[in-house]
């Protein structure tokens, strides 16, 4: 994966497949601690212990269309490559939390990529799922909540394509304000 936004798109797809009604994506930039963390949590069907232990193995996947599952292993690799860490917390029937922590100033820490595009794309393609994206930096905090946006839009569905560029712009403008680098 070339950037963090692609990992988010990829991992959140697992949440969608797990039947999640809500997916929370949280990015926390803590340069003072030299940490940059990404967590994705959902209220999907969760995993039992056996499966949780297996998902970081690239030769494990739940799908039948192919034999490998690289999403989680690649994110884990990219986090650990910076000297960071990776954890999964999940219980059957209780959702899943995935947290990748990167070392902030490490040269191999992935660029963020198009975070706004990723979030809006997912919200637009999955209107029945609530996506809550929170981005925290020392300069402030921004939260995008797809349900809140849908309420504002009223009868216009969030999946309406003419809304897409506006929502992307809204997130980008807010991220600009809290950007620290």
């Amino acid at each position, binding site marked *: 994966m070339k950037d963090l936004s692609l990992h988010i798109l990829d991992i959140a797809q697992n949440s969608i*497949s797990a039947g999640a009604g809500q997916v929370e994506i949280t990015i926390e930039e803590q340069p003072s601690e030299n940490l940059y963390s990404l967590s994705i949590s959902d209220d999907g069907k969760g995993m039992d212990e056996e499966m949780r232990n297996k998902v970081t193995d690239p030769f494990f996947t739940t799908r039948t269309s192919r034999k490998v599952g690289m999403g989680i292993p690649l994110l884990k690799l990219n986090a650990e490559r910076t000297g960071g860490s990776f954890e999964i917390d999940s219980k059957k029937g209780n959702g899943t939390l995935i947290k990748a922590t990167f070392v902030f100033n490490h040269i191999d820490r992935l660029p963020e990529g198009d975070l706004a595009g990723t979030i809006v794309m997912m919200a637009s393609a*999955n209107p029945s799922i609530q996506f809550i994206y929170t981005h925290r930096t020392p300069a402030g905090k921004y939260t995008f909540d797809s349900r809140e946006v849908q309420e504002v839009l009223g009868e216009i569905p969030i999946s309406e394509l003419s809304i897409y560029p506006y929502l992307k712009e*809204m997130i980008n403008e807010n991220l600009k304000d809290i950007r620290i680098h």
Partner: protein
Amino acid sequence: MTTIKSLDDLRKIKSSVQSKLALRERSDHPDQLVQVRVAMATCGIASGAKIVMDYMMVELEKRNIESIVTQTGCMGYCYAEPTIEVTVPGKDPIVFGYVDTKKADQIIEKYIKNGELVEGIIPVNYESIDEK
């Protein structure tokens, strides 16, 4: 045009979007819309599916083609990613492989608008991931 930054700004553009939607006849009948599904699993994303999806969302709107763009999981054609499934109303779904923005443009102009086939079709008795 002013920049959209807050939910209030969003509220302000609502009426212009609404009047545009009112001009459309088919919005209430999803089966009459062009449906594009982009395969968005690890294989697809790593090969550029996000760029293709973004392109489709922006261009279909620009070219005034009433459509829905959604994402799907891996369809099993990892070698041919990015793949997209296009369903034109009244026709069977067709899966296109090796789609980049140039191919996406051809798919819109030739296949969606004129019904001409373009190269890169994956010729299978295709079942979507949901049916498996």
